C-alpha cells in the first residue's frame, strides 16, 4: 500500500509535464509560445515573495538563535513525541492558519537547520503544501463581497487545519517511517 502510494510521488509530475502539452497540442494550442508567455509570470511571483520571506525569516531566525524556540518546543516535546509528532513542527501548527509567509519562512528555516530529508522536514513540507492560509482566504473572499458575519466559516477552516496537521503526520509515517 505505502509502496504503491509512494509511486504517486514519482509519477504525478512527469505525467503532468507530458500530458498537459500533449492535450494542449491536440486542442491546437501553440504550446511553446504559450509556455514562454506564462513563464514570464513565474519570475515576477518569485521576486514578489522576497520582502515577505526576508521579514519572516529574520524574525524566525532570531527567535531560534535566542533559544526561545527551543524553550517552547522543550515544554511540549514529551507529550508530542509520545504520539509520534516531531516536536519541531509544532510552531507550524500555530503559524499555518495565520500567515502564509510566516509559515513558509518557518518551514524553510526548519528544512535548513534539520536537513531536507529528515522526518520533521518532510512533515513540515507536507503541512505547508497541503493547506492554505485560513485567515487570509477568509478575509479575501468574504471581504470582497462585504460579508461581516462569517458565521461558522472560521471554525470550519481551523478544524480542517487541525485535522490536516495530524493527517500530514500520519501520511508521512505511512510513507517514510521515522526517518
Amino acid at each position, binding site marked *: 500500500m505505502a509502496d504503491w502510494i509512494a509511486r*504517486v510521488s514519482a509519477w504525478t509530475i512527469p505525467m503532468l509535464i507530458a500530458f498537459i*502539452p500533449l492535450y494542449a497540442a491536440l486542442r491546437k494550442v501553440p504550446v511553446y509560445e*504559450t509556455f514562454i508567455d506564462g513563464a514570464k509570470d513565474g519570475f515576477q511571483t518569485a521576486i514578489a515573495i*522576497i520582502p515577505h520571506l526576508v521579514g519572516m525569516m*529574520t524574525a524566525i531566525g532570531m527567535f531560534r538563535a535566542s533559544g526561545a524556540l527551543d524553550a517552547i518546543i522543550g515544554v511540549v516535546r514529551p507529550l508530542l513525541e509520545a504520539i509520534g509528532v516531531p516536536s519541531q513542527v509544532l510552531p507550524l501548527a500555530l503559524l499555518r492558519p495565520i500567515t502564509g509567509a510566516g509559515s513558509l519562512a518557518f518551514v524553510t528555516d526548519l528544512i535548513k537547520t534539520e536537513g531536507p530529508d529528515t522526518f520533521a522536514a518532510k512533515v513540515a*513540507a507536507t503541512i505547508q*503544501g497541503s493547506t492554505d492560509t485560513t485567515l487570509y482566504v477568509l478575509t479575501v473572499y*468574504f471581504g470582497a463581497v462585504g460579508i461581516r458575519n462569517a458565521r461558522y466559516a472560521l471554525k470550519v477552516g481551523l478544524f480542517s487545519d487541525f485535522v490536516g496537521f495530524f493527517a500530514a503526520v500520519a501520511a508521512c509515517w505511512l510513507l517514510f517511517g521515522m526517518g
Partner: protein
Amino acid sequence: MVNWIWLGMIVVSVFVGAANGRLNEVAEAAFGGAQTGVTVCLGLISILVFWMGLMKIAENAGLVRLLSRLMAPIVRRMFPDVPPDHPAMGYILSNMSANLLGLGNAATPMGIRAMQELQKLNRQPGVATPAMCTLLALNTASITLVPTTMIAIRMNFGAIHPADIVAPTLLATAVSTGAALLADRWYRHRSGPPRAAGKRIGNGPAASSPSAPASLGGGG
C-alpha cells in the same frame, strides 16, 4: 495579528537572547535570516518560471473547463441551495479546478466572482450563506496536486528526492478537505437560519495579515 506575531518574535528574541547571553547570535541570525530569505526566493525562480509556463498551457488548453465538467456532478451536491444553472456554479467549478491544478493566481479571481454571484442569492447581505461557507471551506483546505513551492525549497537544500512529498501532501489535503466538508455540513444543519449577531471578520484584505501573494498559499 501578523503585526503582533512578528513584533513579538523579534522583541522576545532580543530579551531571551540577552538573558541567555546569546545577543551576538541573535544579531547574526537577523542578517542570516534575511540572506536565506533572498537566496530561497532566487532559488524559487527556476521552478516557478517553469511551472507557471506549464500551467499557462493547461489554462489555454481548456483543462480548467474539462476538470469543471468532470467535477460538476459531485460539486452540485455540495451546494444544494445553488441552482445548477446559476452562474455561481460555473465560477465555483472553475475556482475548484484552478485550485486543483495549482493555478493560485487564477483560482482567487474565480472564487471572488463565485462569492459575488452567491451574494446575489443572499437575502441577508453581510451575513454569510451556507453556500458561501462551503466554498470558503473548500478554499481554506485547498486541494492541490503538486506542492511546487515546497518541492523547490527542498530541492534548494539538496533533498535526495524533492518530490517525494507529493503523495503525503495529496493524502493530507484529501483528509483535511473531507474534514472541512463534514464540519461544514454539521454546522449547516445545526445552526439553521443565520443569526444577526456573530463572529465578525475584518473588512477587506487591508484589515488582515499582509500575507504573501496567493500563490504562496497552498504551496502552489
